């Protein structure tokens, strides 16, 4: 199943200068009853985003019309907690293609990559500059070159991604297709171990 192909992008971004944003904030457990992957974007950050009666909370950044874009910029240790891929589906479903932070939790990072959402790890200083810039600032994310640029100050940092995953994202390949293609080797492994 091809996933979203990642294309180099320039976008304004939504800043979320909070550390340790956990998966229960990204998508609270009561929304995990669905049996499909659709619709989670509406409940991204639900408890920060909506009042009890479902009306938007004016002070939350997703409800601030000044901020928009396909990039989420968050404080360090984003995505800690549960393995729920619903968190990645919510981020993707909302329309974010890139999440930028100085540190990601492991499982969330894997889940994002498996859904064509690119996690970009930057330095604390680069992150602080992004938070300090105005709402009209943009970042340029270039996966081919593995770089991110802050247009406000022109600074560029490179980020890590292993070449296998990079190739998957650039071409829209997915891990299951790959594993299915090596099934003979898996069966041979089983024979060897038996």
């Amino acid at each position, binding site marked *: 199943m091809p996933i979203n192909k990642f294309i180099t992008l320039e976008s304004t971004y939504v800043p979320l200068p909070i550390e340790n944003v956990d998966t229960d904030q990204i998508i609270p457990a009561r929304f995990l009853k669905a049996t499909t992957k659709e619709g989670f974007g509406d409940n991204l950050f639900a408890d920060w985003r909506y009042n009890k009666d479902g009306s938007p909370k004016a002070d939350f950044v997703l409800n601030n019309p000044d901020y928009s874009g396909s990039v989420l910029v968050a404080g360090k240790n984003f995505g800690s907690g549960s393995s729920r891929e619903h968190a990645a589906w919510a981020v993707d479903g909302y329309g974010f293609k890139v999440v930028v932070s100085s540190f990601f939790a492991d499982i969330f990072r894997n889940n994002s990559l498996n859904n064509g959402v690119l996690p970009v790890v930057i330095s604390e200083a680069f992150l602080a500059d992004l938070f300090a810039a105005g709402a009209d600032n943009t970042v340029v994310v270039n996966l081919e070159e593995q770089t991110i640029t802050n247009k406000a100050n022109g600074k560029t940092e490179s980020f890590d991604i292993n070449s*296998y995953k990079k190739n998957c994202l650039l071409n829209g390949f997915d891990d299951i297709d790959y594993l299915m293609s090596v099934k003979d*080797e898996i069966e041979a492994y*089983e024979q060897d171990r038996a």
Partner: protein
Amino acid sequence: MAGKTLFDKIWDIHEVKTIEDGPSVLYIDRHLVHEVTSPQAFAGLKARGIKVFRPQNTFATPDHNIPTINQHLPIADEVSRFQVDTLTKNCEENDVTLFGLGHPKNGVVHVVGPENGITQPGMTIVCGDSHTSTHGAFGSIAFGIGTSEVEMVLSTQCIMQPRPKTMKINIDGELGKGVSAKDLVLYVISKLTTGGGTGYFVEFSGSAIRNLSMEGRMTVCNMSIEMGARGGLIAPDEKTIEYVKGREYAPKGADWDKTVEKWKALVTDEDAEFDKIYNFDAADIEPMITYGTNPGMGVGITQNIPTLDTVEEASQKTYLKSLEYMGYAPGEKMLGKKVDWIFVGSCTNGRIEDIRAFANAVKGKKKADGVTAWIVPGSHQVEDQVIAEGLRDILEEAGFELRQPGCSACLAMNDDKVPAGKYSVATSNRNFEGRQGPGSRTLLAGPLTAAACAVTGVITDPRTL
């Protein structure tokens, strides 16, 4: 050449192939499945026109989204019922063993695996749940995965996984009176922080770990994800072997003897190197309690909430936001704070030893007025043992009701929700905002501390009960 860590030994045996500058193709021995993170994966298989590749290595049980009362009745919430029914249907269509609602083996997936001998030393074990790290207590590589990865395992019995770094956490010495495995691990997480283990697979070692029961070791490994680690494991020993012996899915007869010999080789070589090592002294650990909104925000129960000047400047905004959510201020002492709710249960502390400890501590006392308590066994087998040992009677005499097994108020997917603003002392694993219901405030602790708080209605040191 340096020796190998236990983690490396198990990983290497399970590596089907490696990809240059990419992940390994890792073979999975046991795949545990529950209702919440599997439906989209089964749907993916259907879309490809394939079935589960190795159903004999796959075991399923609904636990996250089931009621903990009246389990003999159809699930009232239609959406939840559909999710549980979907698991049943998917298992039937794929010949996967299912311990469905009401089945004597049903329970929280990480309690069910060990108690039925599905979990064994030296294995690779995955589940679409981050607390799969629990199974590392048996000396296995066990970790939580996302739904895309569940689909990988269902379709090929393999997963694409980058090799994590290795960390050793060594804890020597004796735990003090009233200090449990939960306190030990909350202490470690408070030192490492919630991200301190990220990128690592942890081996727990030292005399304090060796002295823990299998239940205690499961509690420790269970919480290794709460420091961000991929998982945690403990080398198997006689206790491990004794625990697994005779359980339904454990090897039998001559096969047992042969397998046990292999398990005995599952140790870290003396000259093996870890990427990171921490050493702690068990004597420094007192009963722990959390005061904030991640499991790293814990203190000894007699301590005060850290003052703002002890927090890095860049983190102060997040710190204050967290305390504001909890209704606390920096520097306040924890003892004597109000408690509204008690939750004993979950894959962290829902096993027989936990409920036994709680029951014995409240024996002859009474639940405090104004405290609501949910005692939720981790499985039907735990429930049966609680009743057989007479613990239910003790609990009921003290004013506590035993519910039916499930994940319950640990994540509050079902109706077991703590109301907004209420303080809940919970033996579960996460104190995130809203974790036990929107607006709920969770304080993580061990079962003894939960018992002390339950009978006093305030944060109480279990050593003074």
